């Protein structure tokens, strides 16, 4: 096995609490009604194709991509469109949504293969692969939900050298990617080859942290059978799953400020997206389900579920033993970068990697006291920024200085707020500052 790598400067080691590690992926039964948000990705919202009363099949296109940086939305179930309405998403805002009354048995859209036979034979060429991935509504499943075909289309003047596969899952508690790597290892390997063909690169590297030793071993055993794929074990450290840190750890290259991984010759995909690519290309299956971890110290049975998009969170929580009495906070995603959701009705979307329950006492923030200038925030910042300074500048609304101190480089990993012994809300203020600076930069361009 090769040497453990990691990014050297910055980062933290939160306790990993992987309570649902090693739990098999269970299929969650389809609820009576699902709420499919029309737009579940970063970029232009798609155009709605169905109306109230329409009968839809599983996998049927519900909303069509509204531009290049946009994605299709498909029906996760068979049934009747009950209503075109709005529903709250994890941001707390109401967004356009399609409510579908589901039928128990799936009637699949034509052309979708529902068998689980491993198909290693990649017939499509590079361009067709990108086309297929776009058609099937694939977006980054690590949480960023950036349309996948955009990342696959290497812009003119840039060259991709490596496909970097993100199997890091550095967020504490979450195990969805881990479970997928264990259960769908071969499909992931084929998926990687599909993406390699799509991007046009000869080598792919899968980064996996060493708290998932079984996944490292399993994929390393499979690798020789798949040309060009290697496994890079990584020393566990947060936020190694951030693409900038992952590229730094594996290739020792730094994505320039405001740049993309392609600027240093890399294209990064999460293992969940890789699996979805396999299904899209080999089985013609659109992105209508994903793996969701339900976890938390008070959760009765922490587990990994295969969930149809649109399923309300409450149905997923019930399957894991219900919402505990002393719940203080429900987080969509991990504890470091996930979003606290305001209600249990919020539906699962393409970007939902987990539901984390925090107890009342875990949900509270400690009292804020004065900065003692311990430099811990500077030490842990993986972007080599000075969070204490950015916070002060943001509090004083000094936007020019914030821009100079490169506030926009912040990846919002939260390491600074995590480590601060004075419990200062560093990231809260930095986010505020970032939005102000972004606004000013935008107005300058006009």
């Amino acid at each position, binding site marked *: 096995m090769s040497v453990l790598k990691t990014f050297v400067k910055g980062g933290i080691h939160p306790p990993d609490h992987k309570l649902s590690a090693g739990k098999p992926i269970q299929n969650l039964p389809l609820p009576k009604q699902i709420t499919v948000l029309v737009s579940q990705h970063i970029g232009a919202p798609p155009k709605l194709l169905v109306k109230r009363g329409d009968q839809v099949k599983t996998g049927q296109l519900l909303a069509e991509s509204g531009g290049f940086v946009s994605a299709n939305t498909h029906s996760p179930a068979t049934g009747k469109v009950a209503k075109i309405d709005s529903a709250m998403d994890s941001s707390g805002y109401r967004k356009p949504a399609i409510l579908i009354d589901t039928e128990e048995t799936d009637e699949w859209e034509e052309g979708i293969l529902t068998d689980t036979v491993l198909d290693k034979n990649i017939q499509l060429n590079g361009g067709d692969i990108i086309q297929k991935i776009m058609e099937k509504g694939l977006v980054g499943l690590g949480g960023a939900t950036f349309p996948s075909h955009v990342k696959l289309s290497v812009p003119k003047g840039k060259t991709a050298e490596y496909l970097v596969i993100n199997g890091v899952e550095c967020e504490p508690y979450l195990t969805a990617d881990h479970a997928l790597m264990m259960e769908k290892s071969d499909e992931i390997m084929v998926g990687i080859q599909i993406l390699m063909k799509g991007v046009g690169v000869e080598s792919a590297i899968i980064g996996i942290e060493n708290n998932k030793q079984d996944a490292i071993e399993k994929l390393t055993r499979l690798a020789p059978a798949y040309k060009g794929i290697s496994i890079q074990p990584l020393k566990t450290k947060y936020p190694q799953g951030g693409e900038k840190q992952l590229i730094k750890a594996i290739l*020792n290259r730094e*994505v320039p400020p405001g740049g993309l991984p392609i600027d240093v010759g890399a294209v990064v995909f999460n293992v969940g997206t890789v699996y979805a690519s396999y299904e899209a290309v080999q089985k013609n299956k659109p992105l209508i389900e994903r793996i969701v971890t339900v976890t938390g110290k008070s959760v009765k049975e922490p587990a990994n579920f295969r969930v149809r998009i649109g399923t309300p969170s409450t149905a997923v929580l019930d399957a894991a033993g219900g919402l505990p009495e002393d719940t203080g906070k429900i987080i969509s995603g991990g504890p470091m970068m996930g979003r606290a959701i305001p209600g249990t009705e919020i539906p699962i979307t393409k970007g939902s990697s987990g539901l984390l329950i925090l107890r009342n006492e875990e949900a509270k*923030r400690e009292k804020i006291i004065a900065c*003692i200038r311990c*430099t811990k925030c500077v030490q842990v910042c993986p972007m080599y920024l000075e969070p204490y300074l950015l916070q002060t500048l943001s509090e004083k609304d000094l936007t020019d200085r914030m821009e100079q101190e490169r506030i926009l480089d912040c990846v919002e990993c939260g390491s600074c707020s*995590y480590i*601060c012994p004075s419990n200062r809300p560093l990231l809260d203020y930095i986010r505020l500052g970032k939005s102000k600076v972004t606004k000013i930069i935008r107005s300058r361009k006009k």
Partner: protein
Amino acid sequence: MKFLTVSPSPHVHGAASVKSLMYDVVIALLPALGISIYFFGVGALVVTSIAIASCVLFEYLIQKILLREEPSVSDGSAVVTGILLAFNVPANLPIWIIILGALVSIGVGKMTFGGLGNNPFNPALVGRVFLLISFPVQMTSWPVPKGFGTSYTDATTGATPLGIIKEGLLAGKELPELMSEVPGYLDLFVGYMKGSAGELSAMALLLGFGYMLYRKVITWHIPISIFLSVIVFSGIMWVVNPDQYLSPLFHLLTGGIMLGAIYMATDYVTSPMTTKGKWIYGIGIGILTIIIRIWGAYPEGISFAILIMNAFVPLINSYLKPRRFGKEASNG
């Protein structure tokens, strides 16, 4: 419907708090306190407890009565200041002088600037230097280490090894003959010499350094950069003329370099924020200390060196920035 907390990420927090960090510093200082009590007996204990009690009391009273705010003495920072002040004075210092020192440390050094986090100068050193200038006789009459036999009001006092050397050199003597008047290196390492209550034992102080590194209370940069610059600078002088200048090892083991470099220069509030800044700050302290020791009026200079470099910290912070991720990277 349940009431759910909604707040921005991150949703979890690390275990370290200001309180835990301060008490880790206290724990790191315990071996040195133990050695001090072992050599100076009850005097060391009296001085240390009086200093702690008065620092905590003054901070409490100032916050409660003058500032009318919620007292925050439980964070432990006043306890650390108290211990460090005590460690920087002779173990037979009259009680009223210690109390005065604590008042200056906390009142002038810390609370006038707005309390924890806002003071530009190390509070314990502000108090120590105030006492040194105001009470030069009491502050330089060190008790002879006699273990528990040393009574608090012991009349037998003498100069520190650095003081003996300085006076000797000024009187025109040469180093080789003076070396016989000071303890050997092993005694210096263990701390068997005259000096301020807590600065003596390099052994105990280094033990605490290890503990603080293990607990990630501080990083190694400031102490190591001070040690290195002391070794290099005093080493050059020593190589040039070993009859006139002390060896780097003697410099490291005597006076307050260990205590200063490990516990005072690393004071969070008054030291730089970036790694580059820490290097510059540490090198500055090391060089200034040796300059004062060799050419200054005082035999020991680390307190002044740290205070002088404290004044440069805001400047260091605004000029020495970390290289930002992705900027001028080697990309290799």
